[in-house]
């Protein structure tokens, strides 16, 4: 080592010494009071972080304890699902709309949540169909247009394809450390990282026909241990964020799904269900609610009679559609696609009670809480939503 920077041209590299044994490199340390500088940096960064944390809690409404999700967390849940009595796959609707604690309070069984936002639940169904270790009950939550119309796996693709790589020691320890930190720091939210804030702030969809970061779906959920997702409370209380989320869905508009494609999807579903049943498992489909503003387009693109109804017949499977649950009517969907936190509990209560009727694998506990209804989650005045 050398105290003081070398003059220009004197710090040589191997490119200056062809065909020779290279000597021990000389690293020059610039003559500066590094200890004092580093100490000042430490305190300055601590101060800035304190301010950033305060801003996250006070102005952004972020909360410590919202531990977020990741491909590594999904891999952890996926491994647990191998020996689970009940596993849930699907997209964000079944992810947000299932209250795992309520599920367990009713049945004594805590389901393993393996759904992934923006992910085609059919591909997850097939993923489990290919796993000889799974013998439990697989609940497949679906959003019709995604299930029948999306040709690719979606956002969860990397998590699913790299599943085997995401359980390495460094990934696991990273996950544990991250969760521990997120118990105490609210600013640690992927949606509010520096690059996201900058891109969103700068670009408000200036370029036509290009997905702008501003037009993307922003934070709409909070995540708790066990990959328990709930609607972020600010979506329920903040009109701007709620409006932005509604805008991002674009009404679930899109082309009608061709009957031939729907037939293919039904055939593949039937095969996946058969393979799981052959191993001693079972599959039940669940269609969570969506607001009329989305439902009209979903129904146009893949009518219930041509999609959901034919799927159950084709796969010889049972299903629970939100339309068929009296207690799940007119629940609150702040941004049209996912239930509010309280209404997720009501919906879970409703569909689990129905589930118990459909499968002998689950029983209602003797000390199960009383049934919930819409009045347990719909505010007195819903005009503001």
């Amino acid at each position, binding site marked *: *080592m050398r*105290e003081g*920077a*070398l*003059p*220009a041209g004197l*710090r040589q*590299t*191997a*490119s200056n010494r*062809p*065909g*020779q*044994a*290279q000597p*021990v*490199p000389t*690293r*020059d*340390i*610039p*003559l500066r*009071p*590094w*200890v004092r*500088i*580093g100490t000042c*940096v430490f305190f300055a*960064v601590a101060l*800035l*972080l304190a301010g*950033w944390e305060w801003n996250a809690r006070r102005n952004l409404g972020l909360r410590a304890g919202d531990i977020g999700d*990741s491909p590594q967390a999904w891999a952890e849940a996926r491994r647990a699902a191998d020996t689970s009595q009940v596993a849930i796959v699907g997209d964000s609707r079944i992810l947000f709309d299932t209250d795992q604690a309520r599920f367990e309070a009713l049945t004594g069984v805590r389901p393993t949540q393996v759904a992934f936002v923006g992910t085609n639940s059919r591909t997850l169904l097939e993923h489990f169909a290919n796993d000889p270790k799974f013998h439990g009950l697989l609940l497949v939550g679906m959003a019709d247009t995604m299930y029948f119309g999306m040709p690719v796996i979606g956002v969860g693709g990397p998590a699913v394809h790299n599943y085997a790589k995401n359980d*390495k*020691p*460094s*990934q696991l*320890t*990273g996950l544990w*450390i*991250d969760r521990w*930190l997120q118990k105490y720091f609210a*600013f640690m939210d*992927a949606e509010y*990282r*520096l*690059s996201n804030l*900058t*891109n969103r702030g*700068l*670009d408000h*969809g*200036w*370029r036509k*026909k*290009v*997905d*702008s*970061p*501003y037009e993307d779906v922003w934070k709409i959920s909070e995540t708790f241990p066990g990959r328990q997702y709930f609607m972020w409370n600010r979506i329920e209380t903040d009109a701007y964020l709620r409006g932005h989320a509604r805008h991002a869905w674009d009404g679930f508009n899109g082309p009608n799904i061709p009957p031939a494609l729907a037939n293919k999807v039904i055939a593949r579903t039937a095969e996946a269900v058969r393979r799981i049943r052959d191993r001693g498992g079972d599959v039940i489909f669940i269609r969570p609610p969506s607001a009329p503003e989305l439902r009209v387009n979903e129904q146009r693109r893949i009518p219930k009679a041509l999609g959901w109804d034919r799927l159950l017949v084709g796969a010889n499977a049972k299903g629970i559609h939100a339309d068929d649950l009296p207690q799940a009517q007119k629940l609150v969907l702040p941004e049209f696609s996912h239930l509010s936190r309280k209404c997720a509990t009501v919906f879970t209560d409703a569909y689990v009670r129905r589930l118990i009727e459909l499968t002998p694998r689950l029983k209602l506990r003797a000390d199960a809480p009383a049934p919930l209804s819409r009045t347990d989650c719909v505010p007195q005045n819903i005009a503001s939503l």
Partner: protein
Amino acid sequence: MIFNSLTFLVFFAIVMALHYAPFFSWHQKKINLMIASYLFYAAWNPPFVILLWISTVVDWWAAQWMVRAKQDRTRKIWMLISVCVNLGMLGFFKYGGFLLNNFVAIAGSVGVIYHPPGWDIILPVGISFYTFATLSYTLDVYLRRSKPAGSFLNYALFVTFFPHLVAGPIMRPTELVPQFDEPRQAKANQIFFGLALLTLGLFQKVVLADGFLAPVVEAVYDAPGKMPGMLDSWVATLAFAGQIFCDFAGYSTSAIGVALCLGFAMPDNFRFPYGAVGFSDFWRRWHITLSCWLRDYLYIPLGGNRHGPARTYAALMGTMLLGGLWHGANWTFVVWGGLHGLYLSAERWLRARFTGFTPGRASILGLALLTFLLVNITWVFFRAKTFTAAGTVLTGMAGMQAKPDALIAYGPMMIAMLIVSGIFGTHIAMRNTTLEAVVERTPSVAIAGIWTLLLFAVIIEQGQGSAFIYFAF
């Protein structure tokens, strides 16, 4: 394990604590470092530590028996054993699938249809780096450039030393082994400067490469079926130029900083490469340790420039083609290397024809810009996964897409171009100096302010712990 991870921060804190604990002897500290390095590697995939061990043991004994050999033929045999074992491991794990696919394609082209069983080989992280490091040990002994290490512990620690283990800099044994002979402890000043370098490296990787540049690149290069126009193609390619520099140089800077904190010196791996004037200058600045390794163990043994122009051009092209292949088992990497070989050959030819030409400042800037633009053409092949994808982007860059798709939003585009302009401008400004020299002239308050902002940005960018691009090599 990667530098930009929470696990590494905890790991590094423990390693530092053990390294500076007063109750361990220097011998014990070296053992601690070696165990830590094996843990660092095993954190990725424990069974593959065996490969590291094989490379270490085979080359240690190859060098030992080489020195004891009485005949040149015996020395050569031990050298070839080392080369075969190392390149064999590299060939199997890295190129096995590639060679099989090409064999099937060639067989098919002559009417022989062959369907081999599925072959899913995991690529051990860092194998391209540590096999080259251990090969340089045996080759230096064979070429009588150095003697074998006096101690197996020192040699094994050289191979596994975690700052350079998985993505370089590719160190030679003569650069690192002597540093293990005497106790090495950094003074406080050195530790803090090392931490500053680590911060700079993480900023380049986490904030610039992953946060701002990667999404712009992916919007074009990972958009199947889309036809980018001129603007999007150039922006994405320039963004990739920035991304790969920040990613790889960020890793090297972090590695140098980490090693400094432990009291060890590692060589420069990047010297402001986008300020290069010409391609031989570029390769003296980009991934210096690899280009010099290829020069010393491939180009010079192939004859170098000692046997006339034809042999020189052949050696250049051969070295660059193999250098391209080193980066990945795909013909696109070979084309990338081949293009650089062509550039170098053309430059050599032009230099021979215009020996009297001395460029002025404007010409130097113009030539640097031209070098940068031509390097960007090669990056298309480096980043695109297939020739079709490369062709799509190149067609876009030439403005020849019939119906181009707009793919990048203006906001991220502007930020990416600001970053790339900043990188290019910095490299031009710093091409004849070093970071240390500039820092020494900078007031302490400014250094503290910049360091604060860099560290704060790294923390609030949060990072997703994504692997460095060169981990795939």
